[in-house]
């Protein structure tokens, strides 16, 4: 946390606005088809090794590991997803065993199939 003195006297207000408010929670699209669900999570600028995807009580938890603090001189900072995490609800209809994740072009894709409901044709015996 910056000291208020530093903020006021050592930097222009522009600096503060330019570096202190940035996007850190990844945005996401969730789509549903007959077959399953797809989660598209926008986390540009990472490697696939930076992610952890966990399943916790009907929630998919996506975490981005914190990058080691290398001193970087930001003149302007509008995005930094390092160290962030977000939970997404996983429908009861989803078959969690089919969860698959991949990372391409800054987009983390999680696919999950719907449970196949075994349609049983039952003859009820009349006693």
């Amino acid at each position, binding site marked *: 946390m910056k000291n208020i003195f530093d903020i006021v006297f*050592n*930097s*222009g207000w*522009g*600096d503060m*606005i*330019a570096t202190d408010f*940035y*996007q850190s929670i990844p*945005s*996401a*699209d*969730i*789509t*549903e*088809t*007959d077959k399953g*669900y797809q989660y*598209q999570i*926008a*986390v*540009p*600028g*990472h*490697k696939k090794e930076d992610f952890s995807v966990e399943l916790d009580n009907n929630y998919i938890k996506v975490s981005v590991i914190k990058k080691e603090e290398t001193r*970087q*001189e*930001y*003149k*302007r*900072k*509008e*995005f*930094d997803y390092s160290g962030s995490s977000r939970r997404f609800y996983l429908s009861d209809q989803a078959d969690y065993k089919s969860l698959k994740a991949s*990372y391409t*072009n*800054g*987009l983390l894709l999680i696919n999950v199939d719907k449970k196949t409901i075994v349609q049983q044709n039952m003859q009820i015996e009349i006693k």
Partner: protein
Amino acid sequence: MNNKQNPFDAFNTFAPIFNNLMHEVLNQSTTKTDSTETKETFKVAAANILEVENGYQLQVAFPGFSKEEVVLNIDGDLLKITATKTATEEVPSVKYLKKELDTRNYKRVFNLSNKIDRSKIAAEYKDGVLYITLPKKDDVAFNIEVK
């Protein structure tokens, strides 16, 4: 001495709202010639600017775009970056449960300072981020002889 530079010295960066206004201005001048052109909407791409050795690094985020869809253009003092998705047909069987990403068009315009050596600008696209290196011109330091 306070060594901290005002970021606006080296760059004229525009806050997203200004960026949009700027596009409005730019669009107006170009659309006059072609009245049939439909007005396109762009989302302003998020950008980081870092001070690195001998210059700056600009990082512009285009999540979900491939290298081929990202175009970097330098026109005079303007550095323009656009990313356009080739129109994908809406599949009716796909239902959106959450829609936060705007994956059609991105645009960002920066004003290049004359301290930047344009001939040495380099760009690399990796993991949804366009990394642009903007080297400063070599400082020519000289003393003026007092006669």
